[in-house]
């Protein structure tokens, strides 16, 4: 249960970190952010990086900024720093609720949002949020910056579009307009465990009908994704208990779970239905 040997680098500037990453990526060099996924993986010997490039000492990477209708989350923003007060409007309330479902307090103190995205566990809550809200990832290397849309970023089980020499330099999320309705539900065996199924629903309402719907599912397939069939079913309709039930059932039928756990489809349908009911403000068991 001890990590295998590695070389440790603690750069003092982002430029130095990018140079080290460019040099060491071909030799299994990796970024060390919060270490809350990488260090356990090393202790279990499922990850054996030969070099760790620790970004914890880099100044200015812990910024959480709002501007141009975007929330920008820097690579050293810890889970615990995502709070209702720090993000305006419905997005702040949504992220605050989601944060409480990630692991336990001591892990939230260290683990980072960007680390979760780079790690791309299919059950990660931040990955679900990025996929559902249409977030974008800022990838940075010596070669330059590029933005990667969430639907292109998550490529499968713990696999992303990041190149080995790229630092995930930020997550950009659209700030949700006032009045946006949302619901988040997950099922996990114990508080703080990774979810068995998780869903986020975001509804834009106009005159009592759903003008636009975003529904995401996580922890069921090899990556989080939106559910276009169920979204289409809801659009331009008034939310009723029956309609939401129908949308959740429709969503379930389109899922391709990665395992044959017989409870998974039912859990997925349940979390989707509950997320939708919360978003619509309808009581549904």
């Amino acid at each position, binding site marked *: 249960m001890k990590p295998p040997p590695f070389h440790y680098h603690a750069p003092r500037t982002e430029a130095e970190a990018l140079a080290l990453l460019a040099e060491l990526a071909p030799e299994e060099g990796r970024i060390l952010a919060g270490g809350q996924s990488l260090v*356990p993986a090393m202790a279990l010997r499922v990850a054996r990086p030969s070099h760790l490039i620790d970004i914890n000492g880099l100044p200015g990477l812990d910024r959480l900024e709002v501007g141009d209708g975007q929330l920008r989350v820097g690579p050293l923003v810890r889970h615990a720093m995502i709070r209702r007060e720090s993000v305006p409007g419905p997005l702040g309330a949504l992220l605050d609720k989601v944060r409480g479902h990630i692991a336990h307090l001591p892990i939230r103190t260290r683990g980072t949002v960007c680390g979760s995205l780079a790690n791309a566990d299919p059950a990660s809550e931040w990955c679900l949020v990025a996929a559902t809200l249409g977030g974008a990832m800022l990838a940075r290397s010596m070669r330059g910056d590029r933005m990667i849309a969430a639907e292109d970023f998550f490529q499968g089980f713990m696999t992303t579009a990041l190149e080995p020499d790229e630092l995930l330099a930020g997550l950009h999320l659209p700030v949700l307009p006032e009045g946006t309705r949302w619901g988040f539900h997950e099922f996990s065996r114990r508080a*703080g465990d990774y979810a068995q199924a998780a869903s986020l629903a975001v509804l834009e309402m106009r005159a009592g009908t759903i003008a636009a719907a975003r529904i995401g599912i996580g922890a069921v397939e090899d990556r989080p994704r939106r559910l276009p069939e169920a979204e289409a079913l809801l659009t331009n309709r008034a939310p009723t208990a029956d309609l939401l039930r129908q949308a959740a059932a429709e969503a379930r039928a389109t899922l391709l779970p990665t395992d044959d756990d017989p409870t998974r489809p039912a859990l997925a349908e349940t979390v989707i239905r509950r997320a939708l009911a919360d978003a619509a403000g309808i009581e549904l068991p």
Partner: protein
Amino acid sequence: MSTRRIALTVNGTRHEAEAPVRQHLGDFLRGTLGLTGTHLGCEHGVCGACTVLLDGRAIRACLVLAVQAEDRAVTTVEGLAPSPEALHPLQAAFCANHGLQCGFCTPGMLTTLEEFLRDCPDPTEEEVRVAISGNLCRCTGYDSIVAATMEAARAMREAAA
């Protein structure tokens, strides 16, 4: 294997020592500094026994490298009591309420709860249960730990009033 010389403060005392870069803070505290109050169970973040305070915030000592604690302040269970004669209110309440049996989980429970009660001095039992959801106890069944925490919170509120 590569090592680094690090300086850090543990329970108010400055220490300087050599640490292999792959050594986690838990092994450094126990092996190099001889502070065996911090316990190691799973060494992959799941059991909570190794929880210590880093600059006042609870973290897993098995998931932070010793070299990452350079220039920072660590508080372990040995540093919770205000003096050698007096117990921390949480320690006193654990004692009075059978909050421990074998004691393996206790250092992590106490450090986790110390931070929790600072942020949330008047918690509900439910909030206490969520706060310790990342700390496994194989002995007590948790009820006595929750009762001890409620009593400690009460005592700390009264002392502050």
